[in-house]
């Protein structure tokens, strides 16, 4: 890490921006969950269920990151949990696309 990067990381504003991005991302995930639930109730299309779970996981992912950033959770599994969530989201979208029914 060079000196400039180190100094930037010390600025409180960057922490604030990071928190705002996590919160906005979580709110968007919640809107997408509600939208996909509404779409499922209107159409009963099974592949929308994958989207609901994927958006839910994405919301949890961002909220967990937010918690990690503000309250150190010291969870030794964090390094496994977060990439697993990312992978699960991609797998769910993949299934939503390839699943026939």
């Amino acid at each position: 890490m060079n000196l400039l990067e180190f100094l930037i990381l010390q600025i409180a504003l960057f922490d604030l921006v990071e928190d705002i991005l996590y919160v906005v991302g979580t709110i968007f995930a919640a809107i997408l969950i509600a939208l996909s639930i509404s779409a499922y109730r209107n159409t009963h299309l099974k592949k929308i269920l994958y989207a609901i779970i994927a958006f839910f996981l994405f919301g949890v992912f961002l909220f967990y990151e937010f918690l990690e950033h503000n309250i150190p959770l010291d969870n030794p599994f964090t390094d496994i949990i977060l990439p697993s969530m990312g992978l699960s989201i991609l797998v769910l979208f993949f299934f939503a696309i390839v699943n026939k029914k």
Partner: protein
Amino acid sequence: MEDKSSNSNLNKERILNFIQKNPGCYLRQIRNELALSMGSVQYHAYQLQKSGKITSTRQGLYKLHFQSGAFQDHEKKIFQVLNQETPREIIMFIIEQKNPTQTDVVNWLGLSAPSINWHVKRLIELNILDEVKDGKFRRYKLHDNIDPKSIMELLKTHHPSLWNKWSIRLVEMFLSLSDEDK
């Protein structure tokens, strides 16, 4: 005291009239059109439903209201479809063009073939559309029991909400990404 009661009865009567004239309307629509408070609309709608004068059916986040006995379940489904953007546009195009082919509908709406197929299948299942084979083409027309004039009247009064539009677009996005029904 009497004034309050007659006012309340008047509002109830106005709501009932509105529902009779606008079958399938939802509470927010009634509130906006009659300039009443949401609490008052909810209260009267509940009372009217309890007394059996109206019925309601849920569609997503909305409750659609109907005069009791005026509509069959099948007709209520038509209202639900008319509140969705793409099926509504497909029906309008078919009324306008009479017997368009599947390709005409896809080109006109600019959506993917799987999305159009999926919507058309639902409309055929609901007995709103019929599919007619014409050589190697598939043509669509309104079901024989559906009167285009009455559908046009309903299309004027039923508009999809923004939320409904977005939720259907989400479905279309997934349908376009998959090659279902191609």
